[in-house]
């Protein structure tokens, strides 16, 4: 019974996720971002070199990854608390399902719908607009993997906010603040200062680990062959200097730890805490 209930909730949340107004708007904007109209003009005019795809992907990640959290973070942040506010959570949990089944159904459904939007946006852009071949998938895969990981982390972070919040507006505001923190504050403020201070470079390891958006971008960039120092950015360069060839493994481990810790926190808080 537990399995079928979790599956029923997964399907329901997947479809609800795709139907959400925010997801529809985001999909259109994200797709426009992914196809990058100026680049299309350059391609059609044959101004780009044959290996433009790798250089383009690095640019695309720098451009689109900061906006990826804007899909899953608000969607996750409002999901449970919204049902808490309107009484649906109480009604759903009064059915013969466990809280864990509910959470798995919610997480899996939202994960599938947001991942579909993200991967769909990149893949459609790659195949339709840039005429990418199946053989070039190895070039695109690291970006897709990094995007999926980032999406998962942001979704879990959003769900965590949703679990601990009593009001939808509070969860939403905290989600937007975190997005601002990851994409703006940590980038232009502390990081540039730290990099410029001699001896402070190792702290970059911690800063990179604490910012999943920047870490995801680096993970994607490390996966591209012949990547230039401008694509790596100052943090990527310092990381490569500090960790050497192990930099991608370090970043991947950090991202997986984010997923693991957030998942455990979500389960622990949701299953054990007094919700009503």
């Amino acid at each position, binding site marked *: *019974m537990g399995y079928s209930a979790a*599956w029923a909730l997964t399907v329901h949340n997947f479809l609800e996720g795709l139907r959400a107004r925010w997801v529809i708007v985001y999909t259109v904007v994200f797709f426009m971002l992914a196809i990058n109209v100026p680049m299309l003009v350059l391609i059609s005019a044959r101004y780009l070199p044959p290996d433009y795809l790798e250089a383009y992907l690095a640019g695309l990640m720098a451009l689109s990854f900061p906006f990826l959290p804007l899909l899953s973070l608000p969607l996750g942040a409002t999901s449970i608390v919204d049902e808490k506010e*309107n*009484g*649906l959570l109480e009604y759903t949990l*009064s*059915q*013969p*399902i466990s809280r864990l089944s509910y959470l798995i159904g919610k997480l899996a459904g939202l994960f599938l719908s947001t991942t579909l939007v993200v991967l769909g946006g990149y893949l459609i852009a790659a195949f339709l607009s840039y005429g990418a071949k199946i053989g070039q998938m190895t070039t695109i895969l690291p970006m897709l993997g990094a995007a999926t990981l980032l999406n998962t982390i942001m979704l879990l972070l959003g769900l965590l906010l949703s679990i601990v919040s009593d009001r939808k507006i509070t969860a939403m505001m905290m989600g937007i603040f975190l997005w601002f923190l990851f994409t703006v504050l940590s980038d232009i403020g502390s990081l540039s200062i730290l990099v410029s201070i001699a001896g402070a470079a190792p702290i970059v390891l911690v800063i990179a680990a604490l910012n999943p958006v920047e870490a995801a971008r680096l993970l994607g960039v490390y996966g591209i062959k012949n990547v230039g120092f401008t694509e790596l950015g100052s943090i990527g360069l310092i990381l490569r200097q500090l960790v050497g060839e192990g930099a991608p493994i370090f970043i991947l481990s950090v991202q997986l730890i984010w997923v693991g810790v957030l998942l455990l926190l979500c389960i622990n808080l949701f299953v054990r805490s007094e919700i009503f």
Partner: protein
Amino acid sequence: MEVLVADNVKKNYGRHTALDEVSFNAKQGEVLGILGPNGAGKTTLIKCCLGLLDFDGQITVDGIDVKTAGAVARARMGYVPQRTTLHDKLSIIDEVKLIGRLKGVNDNHRFREILERLGFWERRKSPVGSLSQGMKQKLMLGLTLLTEPDILLLDEPLSSIDIEGQISLLHQLDEIKKEDKSILISSHIVGMGSVIDRVLVLNRGEVVAFGGVEEVLGKLHIRNKLYIKLHQGDAHDDDLVNVLRENNVYSVQSMEGWLIIECDSKDKAKLIASIFEHGIRPEDIVSEALSLERHYYELIKG
């Protein structure tokens, strides 16, 4: 047979005691009313029964502990919350399918059967959000029946629906009761007196009274009354009083030509027959049944 047993249930919200050693049981085929004013602990008690809240003490449904096997116990229960919240964007049929699957039912014939029984089949593709509060409540009540539960828990079912909805609900409850299911209804307004078999009265988290309606009211010295008006010269009051005493009445009072007799409801017919057997022909007889509504305030004060 006891379907639900609560033993010394205690629930605190911080320093506030919402339930204080509440014990009761619900028997198969009976309607148990949980009465009390706002803040008495009725909703908290229902949520504890469903295993939605942590609490001290024990609650079992068909012998299954709701704390250790909540999902299994909930499979034996159906719940209609105070707020009639469903997925407003889903169609009625999709809502039934979703809740059915959460209950472990994935049978299209059963879904159709329930919708036809509720009268929703023709409009099954309409969004749930287009239904009135009363209709939503009717749908939620129908959804509880998807799995043939042993006990239904209804939290303040009359509070948000109009008179027509209330009458329809009472009719539905009567039908469900005939299927030998237990029904547990909480209410701060009474209104359910006609369907309630036993009553649990709560006030500030404590049990004020528990038992059959007549028994509970009897403890407060509130009893059934029989009013008898005699023809002038038909019989002396003293003769009649002697007849009544033979029939275990609680008290007899005389007022403006009427005799007011307090007795058990089961004895009323025998009492009237006995009066006629003694050759007394009353001008009028009025029987007043016990009423939870009338004695609500005396009840909650204990």
